[in-house]
């Protein structure tokens, strides 16, 4: 069986410059991998929620919007300070999933999978390393590979991903160049 994602490698057009910057220092440890958006979202909801108490329950929408905006900001900060990885997980049935993780978080993610499924056949491959100071967004990189791999099954593609990582407008705005499959 041909590996869809690996086969699509030629169509991934990446940006960014080579840099091998291991991020150190206290600031780099403030945010765990993939938690930036979550923290920002939570903070936004709390702050926005306080406003909602003062001005009325309808402001929950404002709180959510505020939360979303802060989540995006934290996600960007997270992207800029962490080296990230785009990985491909393949199982014995040929199922493929494209994911992202920080370099620190990636080993744990693999171990979780192995502990949960000790006798399952699978492998993890590192498709791309995205240095935190490269200016390349981890979301854009993941979206590149999802598109190169043919897209999620829910959209008629071969990948086990439940959805694309970004909508097309945001992806293009962020510099993405790979067309939908």
């Amino acid at each position: 069986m041909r590996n869809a994602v690996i086969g699509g490698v030629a169509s991934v057009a990446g940006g960014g410059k080579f840099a091998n910057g291991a991020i150190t220092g206290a600031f780099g440890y403030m945010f765990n991998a993939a938690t930036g958006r979550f923290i920002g979202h939570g903070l936004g909801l709390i702050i926005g929620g306080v406003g909602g108490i003062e001005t009325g329950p309808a402001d929950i929408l404002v709180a959510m919007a505020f939360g979303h905006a802060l989540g995006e900001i934290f996600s960007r900060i997270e992207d800029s300070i962490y080296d990230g990885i785009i990985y491909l997980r393949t199982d014995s049935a040929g199922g493929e999933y494209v994911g992202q993780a920080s370099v620190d978080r990636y080993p744990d993610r693999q171990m979780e999978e192995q502990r949960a499924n000790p006798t399952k056949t699978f492998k993890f491959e590192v498709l791309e390393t995205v240095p935190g100071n490269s200016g390349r967004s981890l979301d854009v990189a993941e979206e590149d590979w999802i598109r190169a791999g043919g897209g999620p099954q829910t959209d008629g593609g071969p990948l086990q991903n439940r959805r694309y990582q970004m909508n097309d407008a945001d992806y293009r705005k962020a510099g993405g160049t790979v067309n939908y499959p």
Partner: protein
Amino acid sequence: MSVNIDIGLVFAIPLAEGMFGFGQLIAWQRPIFYMAAYDMTAKSLGPSEDDMRSARPVLLGNFFDILIRNGRWLAIQRFQIPKVPFPCFKVRIGDKFYVESWDKQQKREATSEECATLQFRTDNSAIVLENALKAHFALGPWEPNWFDNLKAEAVAKSSNMFLSN
């Protein structure tokens, strides 16, 4: 007697009723061990140091140690580590591909031929080693997509690739 799961450890892999194959932990890089599996079977669990010294590694690759930890593979004891090749991988950073040594200490830009030949840095679930060893001894099907890159000759070829440029 408990045995530390550490570099040098030899372990027995059940291949069939009363038949064991043997593997060894060669190196470690969180969260993965670089393991070797040998062209040697036995009906008992205790290979001697001489047995290990004369055994030929036939499979090499990155695997998790879960099947040692859960007792499916039986830890025996630590022996001296043989000299084995380590694979190189292709890694993509920004818009370029690089050839990177297993220990990540060496890296250079890859040629298009190397990009076509080398695999991405790959970590396999533990059962892949067991199934590949069974297949090596014709006790199961050989699955090229999963096992070809684990063959010692294939690893040696990719290992040499780093030196070729």
